[in-house]
């Protein structure tokens, strides 16, 4: 194993901002900032629809503002295989809907509340993701 592209400071600062966003949403609106749930509800539920829409718009504005102020494009390198993109999207959509959360809802909010349910979920999706990358690299 070798260590590559290590950016602990910007990643840590980004993490602090994500934590701050979670705090603003919870202390202000009393809600958990879980992005899979908010996106899902925006699609199917009338409850808090405008709030969900504004939250999602805010997230989309984030990269635009950073690009505007730094003047450099946001790095974005993604695989382009249609089969992979569709399979991954379906798995993430179905998985977060039945598992009740993703990296934000379980990984950040749940662990911050010391929820055993979220800690189990996070260990499982991290483990599954690590093994997927390992196996994909073998074929």
């Amino acid at each position: 194993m070798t260590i590559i592209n290590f950016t602990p400071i910007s990643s840590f600062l980004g993490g602090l901002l994500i934590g701050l966003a979670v705090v603003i949403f919870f202390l202000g609106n009393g809600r958990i900032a879980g992005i899979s749930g908010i996106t899902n509800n925006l699609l199917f539920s009338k409850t808090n629809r405008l709030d969900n829409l504004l939250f999602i718009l805010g997230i989309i504005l984030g990269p635009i503002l950073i690009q505007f102020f730094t003047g450099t494009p946001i790095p974005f390198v993604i695989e382009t295989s249609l089969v992979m993109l569709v399979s991954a999207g379906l798995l993430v959509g179905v998985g977060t809907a039945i598992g009740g959360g993703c990296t934000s809802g379980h990984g950040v909010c749940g662990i911050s509340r010391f929820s055993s349910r979220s800690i189990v979920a996070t260990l499982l999706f991290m483990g599954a993701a690590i093994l997927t990358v390992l196996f994909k690299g073998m074929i």
Partner: protein
Amino acid sequence: MNRFCSLVSGLVFGLGLTLSGMTNPEKVINFLNIFRAWDPSLAFVMIGAILISAPFFYLAKNKNKPLFAETFSWPTVKEIDSKLILGSLMFGIGWGLIGLCPGPAIASISLLSQPSFTFILSMLAGFSLVRAYNLIK
């Protein structure tokens, strides 16, 4: 005021995701690639986020209501059941295949990347499948 709060929270979230590097699927894959060429940076995202939010969740336990809403919506489901386990495993496999989870996927809408739109539409189709299954069940 709660509308403004939602927008600001989303914006700060989006800034954090971008600054942290989470929005780049390649960096996420390198973070998950612990057995070969490993980029441990994204572990610091979770550490930073939890460091800020954990104390506030603890403090909120003794508060009756949030600033701009009537009640705190604390999650009520506590069980570790087969749905949680199966769902989390499926999500992990999907995340590992491409390197996008829901937050960075939404943030990447601003980058107008065609592959990311394909991913997001498929994710929304996944939400819809579960919704349809729960309705007919």
